Structures are given as C-alpha cells and as structure tokens.
C-alpha cells in the first residue's frame, strides 16, 4: 500500500490499525498537507459490503461534526474497490497512554474531560452517538488539544424524530444483530441488551475520566464475564482521598447504573467540569487545622484512681465506655465513666506490653468509627484527626465498626490487630501509628460470598497461636473460621463439621455464622466455638470440628470463654433461640464444662432464676487471671455480674448501665514488672495442623497464687 495513490493522496506510512480498517499517513498532493487515510481492511471485516457501509457511515457521521475536538473528515472515496476516508492527521499520545499506571493530575483530567464532553455534546446535538468512546480513541496533542477519533461505530439517530418540546429526545438505537463497542467501556444497559442512547456515551465518558484519574479502569475482571458482572453490579472503587471530591462526584454521576440517574446531556458534564475548573478557593483564614486537640478530656466524668496491683474491668456499651477497678480481693469495685457519651464502644483491650498500661477503645457514632487509647486510665483519650483505621480507596467499602482489638505476640509489643465491619482484618506494626488492611484475607475469593449476620458482616474474633507466631485465626459472621499459617498472607476456610442451619447445604466450606471462638494459650491445637446453633470443639487446629453440646438447654448462644489456667474448662451462656435470643426459661445460667465439652453444668448461685430474660453478647464475657479465676459478664439490660470463685457463686457488680457489648479484664502492675508465670507451661505440641492428634486431657500444671499483668486476649 505504501507509495500508492488514493484519490489525490499518496500513502507514505502505516500508522495504525483498527477494527474497521488500517490507517495510513499520506500526503495530499493537491493541498500539500499531511493527512490520515483510513482504508477498509477487507480481511478484518466480516464481509466487505457491511464493512463498507460502516465506513461510509463513519465518514458521513464524522463529516457532519465540525468541532475542534473531533477529528475532521476531509473526503470519502473509492479507488479500485478500496473504500477510504481522508481525515485530519492528529499527532499526539492517546489518553490511554498518558494515564497509564499512575493516572493524571486532577487539573489534566478536568482540562481533557471538558474537551471530550464538548465533542460529545456537539455529536449528540447532531444526532450522533459515538458508541465506542474509550481512552485509546482520544488523542492529546503536544499543545494539550484533545481530539476524539474513530466514530467508526457511530450511528445517526433518526433526525426526523418528532419531539413535543421541539428538541431532540433520546431516540433509542436498536441494533438487534450485535453489540458493538469495547467491553470495559460499555454501559450496563448495553450489556443487558437494552437500547443504547446518548447516555451510553456519557457512561463511557465516566469510564474515561476515571481511567484518566486513576490509571486503571473502574470495572475490571480476569475474563469478559467478570468484567461484565463488575459493570452490572459493582460500584467503582474510590479514587485516592486526595482527589478532588467534586470531580469524583462528577465521575460517579456519569457511572450511575441506570441511564435516567446519570447526567442526561454531555453539555451538563461539560458545565460541571468547567465549574470545578473555575472554582479557585481562596482562604482568607489561614488557620491550620493541625492545632486541633490531639487528645480529649471528658468532662463531668468520674475517673478511677488505679494503683499498683489493682484489677480492672473495661466495659464497652452501646452508649459509652466504663472502667471498673478493684483491689486484688475483687470484692468492692469502683466505677469510672461514662467515656464517649452516646458513642457505641464495641471493642476494648488492655495492652500491658513493653511497660505500657494502655487501654484501647473503638468508638462508633454518626460521625464515624475511631480507634482511640488512653495511657492514664481514662483521664485523657486520643482524639485522632483522621480515622486511624480506614479502607484504602480501591477497596470500595467504608469502615462501619471495629468489633475486636487484639494484641500481637508478647515479644512484638507494637503489633496489634483489629477485626472490623465490613469483614476485614487490619494490622499495625508500629503500636497503632499506622494501620493497614490485611490483603491476604480481604482479597480472598470467598469474601464476595460472605453474608451479613444480624449484627452486620463482621470479623469479630482474632486468635493468635502463641506457640506459632505465623498462625492466626479469625471468625466472621457469616463467613466462618479462617486460618492463616503464614502470618496473614494466605487464609483457608476451616469449617469442617460446623453446621449452617440456614443454608441449603448444611455443611458448606464456608458461610457459617460463627459467633465466637476461643482458645487456651497452652493448648493452641484446641479451639471451642459457639455457632449460630451449635457448640463445637476442634482438637486439630480447626481442621475438623465436633459437636460438644452435651446437656446444655440450647446450643444457641454468643459468648464462649476458656478458663485462664484450665484448658478443659469453658464457660458459655446458652440462649433460647435465634428468634428469642434470651436466656432459656427466664433463668440466667452460665454453663461450664470442666472436661472440654463432654458434659456441662449450670452455674446459678447468685444469678436470678425467675423472669430473667437476658442476652449476653459475644464479647460480653471474660475471665481474669487470678487463681481462683474471676469470671465476668454483662447483659443487654445493663447488668454486670462477677464470680471470683470460677463460677460457683455470683454477685451483681453494677446495674443500670447501657446495653453491654464487651468486657475485658486487666491487671495493673508497675511498668517494667516482670510478668508472673501463672499460665501453665505449654505441653508438647504437634508440629503442624495436619499431624495434630486429638487429646482431651493432656497435662497442665496448676497455677499458683496470682497471675501476671498480661492483658486478656480478646478471644476470651
């Protein structure tokens, strides 16, 4: 073809190839200018006649569009059976190439977006829909001028279409034989087989703007099917938080799934982008926000005076946090709080590692969810400017709640984990300065199929294997139990034997509504699990689970706590059913097993046995580390009960609190005091989950006097 003459143009070089034809650079020998010539590629087209028609349509359509941002058509011709179009030669880079990888700065996105919208506006006014707008079809010249190319799929809408208002309506375009265009830019209505109209171009413009801003497409998949599903169902992942909110809002408005919810005209988008471009915000008040308080003091709050050796209870309720302290006798308790009036405090933890005595709390209100801490037992709390735990922009979801705060291993005092809603795990390795999403779990292929339970889709339990710092467990409602053996990089579902009564398949790989799991640090191969119906034990690192609801009035419940020194001793509070969710028969009974679930006994002394319709939520029970151990629980009716003799007898510590969500216990020792080893020495452990053997009574030494100040694991 090189050297040939078409009309009065001599072909000099091939510069590109598209679906409909090959594009050549040529010299117009009559007007002495460089031009581009597009020649129908016969081999590429299904049949020459249809390709030819399309090429002519392209020519006719584009030649009607005289606009600085639309590539100009000069001539259409046929030479020796070759159909060709002579058009303006545009030299520059495609928007796709410019925005690849990191995306463009917002100013550039605005500048180019305005020009593209202007081009579309002209085309639509002429009754022409582009139908294949994409970043590869948009060229930016060295001067920053945008040219929209390739109206190869354009169709002229019926120009005679009557309209009552005298302006053009959105005449629909039906092509019953095929769907044309480029998949990642196709609007949902096209994929649904519905008629496309001008607004399908506006969707594509939204995709182009997003791609220009982010350097990636808003909807992607490994296969065409996945991409189609993403376009139809998913919301585009948020752009970087520093990206101008106004521009992000315009892009989102373009990407509304329903055409009627989008902009209705390209000119509207152009106007919105121009308005944003002209908005120069000048601050006459140069006050920097960074001088806002980094800590907050709660006024009108009673604070507790904590002394060395004191025992503490951290109580989170739907309306704030409370702290209780007692001397080691645990007979009289002093109440402090409420901290964070009106905020839900869904998770608390005490961190006594590395000489700290830090209390963590998550607070939830209409103003968002924050993770805070106090180092002075509640007198001052951190008041972060930015939410410390936040999903990255590309995650596509926002934090609703923090349901669990769990300390990392004792020898890694700056490691902590948080379990959140929507279900995800966050990790810090610098003592809480920065948190990051644990991608290995968030990107797990099961995640899209986890379903929210009654309390939302929450990752509510995190357990660490103290004999193997690489092994972690999480529990998700409703997703089930997952285990990582490589420090959180990869995760496997571990739900064999756990029933999901609400699923068609009663024993699925995942999807169980697990309410709580618990482990004794000395027996990491053994876990106990309270399910949404079902009480289970695993003796092989959660590889398999066995029902141990032997003699309990109901196997429905929430909390499960392992005795701090006795690995076979476990506490639960059965409730009647998933519909009633209150203690059975109006009797408040804690049940205890001392043989790892072979049998259970009710513990009732001091607890109301008539008219007590109580609910104890999954984190509203805990144990201290004294010997004999103290067991504590709180109710949704705001009562706090304690036993300092391992459950034989109970006393009500407090009543009248807001509904209790979580309780943790802690012992306060002087910073630097050496931990006392009351935790039984770990027995010999199986090397790996696969080789774990079942054992119900392997030896553990009795603890002596008082335990260490180690914080309570939140899995209790």
């Amino acid at each position, binding site marked *: 073809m090189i050297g040939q003459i078409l009309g009065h143009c001599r072909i000099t070089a091939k510069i590109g190839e598209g679906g409909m034809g090959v594009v050549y650079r040529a010299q117009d020998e009559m007007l002495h200018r460089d031009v581009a010539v597009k020649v129908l590629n016969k081999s590429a087209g299904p049949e020459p006649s249809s390709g030819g028609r399309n090429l002519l349509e392209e020519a006719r359509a584009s030649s009607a569009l005289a606009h600085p941002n639309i590539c100009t058509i000069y001539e259409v011709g046929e030479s020796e059976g070759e159909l060709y179009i002579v058009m303006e030669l545009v030299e520059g880079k495609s928007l796709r190439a410019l925005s690849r990888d990191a995306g463009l700065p917002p100013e550039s996105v605005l500048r180019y977006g305005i020009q593209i919208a202007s081009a579309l506006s002209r085309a639509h006014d002429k009754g022409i829909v582009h139908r294949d707008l994409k970043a590869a079809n948009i060229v930016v010249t060295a001067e920053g001028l945008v040219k929209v190319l390739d109206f190869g799929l354009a169709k002229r809408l019926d120009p005679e279409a009557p309209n009552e208002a005298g302006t053009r309506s959105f005449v629909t375009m039906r092509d019953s034989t095929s769907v044309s265009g480029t998949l990642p830019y196709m609007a949902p209505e096209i994929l649904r087989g519905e008629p496309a109209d001008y607004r399908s171009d506006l969707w594509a413009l939204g995709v182009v703007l997003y791609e220009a801003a982010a350097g990636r497409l808003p909807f992607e998949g490994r296969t065409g099917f996945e991409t189609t599903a993403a376009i139809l169902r998913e919301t585009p992942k948020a752009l970087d938080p520093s990206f101008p909110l106004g521009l992000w809002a315009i892009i989102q408005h373009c990407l509304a799934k329903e055409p009627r919810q989008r902009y209705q005209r390209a000119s509207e988008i152009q106007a919105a982008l121009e308005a944003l471009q002209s908005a120069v915000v000048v601050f006459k008040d140069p006050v920097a*926000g960074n001088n*806002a308080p980094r800590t907050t003091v709660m006024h009108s709050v009673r604070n507790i005076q904590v002394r060395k050796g004191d025992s503490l209870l951290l109580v989170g309720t739907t309306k704030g946090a409370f702290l209780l302290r007692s001397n080691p006798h645990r007979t009289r308790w002093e109440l402090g709080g409420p901290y964070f009036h009106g905020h839900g405090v869904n998770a608390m933890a005490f961190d006594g590692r590395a000489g700290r005595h830090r209390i963590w709390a998550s607070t939830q209100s209409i103003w968002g969810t924050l993770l805070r801490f106090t180092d002075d037992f509640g007198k001052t709390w951190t008041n972060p400017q930015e*939410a410390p735990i936040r999903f990255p922009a590309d995650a596509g979801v926002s934090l609703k709640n923090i349901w669990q705060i769990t300390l990392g291993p004792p020898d890694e005092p700056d490691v902590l984990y948080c379990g959140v809603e929507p279900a995800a795990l966050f990790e810090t390795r610098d003592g809480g300065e920065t948190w990051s999403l644990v991608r290995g779990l968030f990107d797990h292929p099961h995640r899209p199929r986890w379903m929210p339970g009654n309390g939302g889709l929450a990752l509510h339990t995190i357990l660490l294997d103290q004999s193997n710092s690489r092994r972690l467990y999480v529990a998700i409602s409703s997703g089930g139990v997952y285990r990582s053996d490589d420090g959180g990089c990869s995760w496997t579902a571990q739900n064999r034997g756990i029933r999901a009564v609400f699923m068609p398949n009663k024993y699925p790989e995942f999807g169980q509504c697990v309410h709580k799991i618990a482990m004794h640090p000395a027996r990491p191969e053994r876990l106990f699990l309270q399910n949404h119906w079902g009480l289970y034990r695993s003796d092989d690192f959660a590889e398999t689970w066995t029902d141990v609801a032997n003699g309990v009035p109901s196997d429905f419940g929430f909390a499960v706590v392992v005795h701090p020194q006795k690995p076979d001793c476990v506490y639960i509070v059965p409730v009647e059913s998933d519909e009633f969710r209150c203690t059975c028969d109006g009797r408040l009974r804690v049940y205890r097993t001392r043989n790892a679930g072979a049998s259970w006994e009710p513990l009732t002394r001091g607890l109301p046995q008539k008219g007590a319709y109580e609910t104890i939520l999954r984190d509203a029970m805990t144990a201290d580390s004294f010997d004999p151990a103290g067991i504590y629980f709180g109710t949704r009716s705001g009562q706090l009960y304690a036993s300092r003799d391992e459950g034989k007898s109970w006393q009500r510590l407090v009543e009248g609190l807001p509904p209790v969500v979580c309780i943790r216990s802690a012992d306060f020792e002087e910073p630097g005091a050496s931990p006392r080893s009351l935790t039984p020495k770990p027995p010999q452990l199986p090397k790996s989950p696969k080789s774990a053997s079942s054992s119900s009574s392997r030896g553990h030494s009795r603890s002596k006097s008082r335990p260490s100040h180690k914080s309570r694991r939140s899995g209790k």
Partner: protein
Amino acid sequence: MPATFHIPGPLRQFVAGRDTVEIADTPSTLADALSALWLLYPGLRDRIATEQGHVREHINIFIGEEDVRYTGGLLSPLAPNSEIWIVPNISGGAT
C-alpha cells in the same frame, strides 16, 4: 462573597471552637466548599465523609433551607453568600 458553614456542636472542637467557618470566594459547588473546609480543618473530613467520599449516612447538609439530597448532592451549586448547615440526623442516635 464567601460561603458560610454552620458547624454543629460536636464538631466545633475541630474548628477552634467556632460555630461558623467562612470559605472566602465563592466555591461553585458543595463539593468544592467541603474540600476547602477540610483543607482548613482536617479533623472534619472523616467525621463528615466516609473514606469512599460519601457524606455519612446520618448527616444531612442543607444549603439555605434545602436538603442537598434534593438539589444535586455534592454537586449542588452554591450561590454567592450561601449558608451551609451540617446537621446530624435526628434518627442518628441509636436507642
């Protein structure tokens, strides 16, 4: 011709205790005005918007007397001297 934000009590700790904040010049849309607001006072951003850039579920924003849900959301146009009210939803407090 500034736009003026009226700051609710719980958020005044982040704006040096003020009950109003003026954005000099006229931002053309609510989104621009909010972007300016939390450039000035970063503590406000995460309290008003989610990390995905949406106004939180139980927070209402009014321009004058109009709820912006009915005037174009974040793209609601601002006239000169607009008064913008950030108002907690009365349903926001859980029982």
